[in-house]
């Protein structure tokens, strides 16, 4: 079996992945225009002010789209097929991509409320991938 390739954090993204490893979803917020953004960048993509600050996000959002993948991108994902990839718009505004887990993956619907959880940390960079579960899930 081939291992899945995990993200390699860089200066833009390290704070995000450190948060995930601690069970905390983090977003950047612009100090000038207050825009919350994802993916992380060295500047605010709305007003171009430098150095947005990190903050803890609610971890709550809604499914805005989903797809059940039957043909995986690589042999590393073969054991998981079929699995659900979803786009979730967070309460703070930005959209993130995650896999749906548990009951949330059974019959996902656009508009379903979900909350973000985390896989166990793995690999040399201690990467805990975010996922989404149904709001009522334990």
């Amino acid at each position, binding site marked *: 079996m081939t291992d899945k390739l995990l993200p390699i954090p860089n200066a833009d993204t390290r704070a995000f992945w450190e948060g995930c490893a601690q069970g905390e979803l983090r977003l950047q917020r612009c100090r000038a225009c207050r825009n919350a953004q994802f993916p992380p960048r060295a500047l605010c993509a709305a007003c171009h002010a430098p150095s947005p600050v990190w903050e803890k996000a609610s971890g709550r959002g809604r499914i*805005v*789209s*989903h797809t059940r*993948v*039957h043909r995986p*991108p690589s042999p590393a994902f073969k054991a*998981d097929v079929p699995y659900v*990839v979803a786009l979730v718009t967070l309460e703070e505004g930005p959209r993130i*991509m995650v896999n749906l887990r548990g009951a949330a993956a059974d019959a996902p619907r656009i508009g379903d409320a979900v909350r973000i959880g985390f896989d166990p940390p793995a690999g040399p960079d201690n990467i805990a991938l975010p996922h989404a579960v149904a709001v009522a899930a334990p």
Partner: protein
Amino acid sequence: MTRRAIITGAADTAVGEVPGSTCMGLHAEAASLALADAGLKPSDIDGVLCAYSFTEPHLMLASVFCEYFGIQPAYSAAIHAGGATGCVMAMQAAALVEAGVCRHVLVVAGDNRLSGLSRDKAVAALAEVGHPQFERPFGVTIPALYGLVAQAYMHEYGATPEHLAAMAVNSRTHAARNPKAQMRKPITVADVLASRFISEPLRLLDCCLISDGGAAIVVSAADAARDTAKRPVALLGAGQKNTHEHLVAAPSLTEFGCRDSAAQAFGRAGVTAADIDVAEIYDSFTITLLVELESIGFFQKGEAGPAALAGALDLGGRLPCNTHGGLMSYAHSGAAGGLFHVVEAVRQLRGEAEARQVRDAELAFVHGDGGILSAHCSLVLGRQ
């Protein structure tokens, strides 16, 4: 006022599985065919635009091609805009000749993506389109990313799997009339809906082909028409719009840059969508074509699917579309895929499309999109 650039040569190689083909060999064959079509010699070419390759990737593909083909043009560059590249190259070539930098620009692309790359390698290479940290770790593929667009679009505008399937059926109906097409056996909506899921709601027959093939056009200064062999086709207008690269950062999941790129192209050409006689629109997936038909304004939201089911995209319909068979039935070989649409538009405007000819076609619209509906380029071509 600057006189519009003209397309003086257009050609493609055999497509599908082309045994013994190489990436550069396909480039050279397409280039030779396009030059012969124009009645020009290699030494007439003073500009070259290339794209990218999956089987022979290189940092400087235009230099690689010029060395292989044996020309030393005054200007050359390679352009990377995914599926928009064919149209972007045509737009750039027109700008070069209209600015007086070049007189004859050769635009060429090709790849032996079917025979030179295993299917697993092709799928893996294409998955690199996803964001390396925020999309790819979740197991996305290009069909998965387009599946996400499809799900959102169907939810918002009521498009159905049958509406998507109608796009694939239309491509195959046209391809059946084209002896060069890779897939010619007619299919029905039921066949599409019975094919296996790749990434829901997209099924195998909602997806484009993987092919070998090359294509080339020659874009020339307006006054070059007297030196060339065929009736010239004018590049009346072009436009671009890029709104994002990764779907996770797209401003919307249902509104894309094709609307603005087409509006620019129509505006510069002084025409509207209603004036277009034939359209060759990027169709990497059924959803790609459906979204573009509705966003560009050829159909109202929710209307393209029912119209296609009623034959609107076929010969004699309101908007004959992808008359060569498109990426789903003619061929898709990397950047050449988008150039096939341009080549077909030229053939339609010259009246060379034989059994698939749109009668009296005077104005053609061509559209390419790269990424996940990320980069858009639209062209309006006219018979001269």
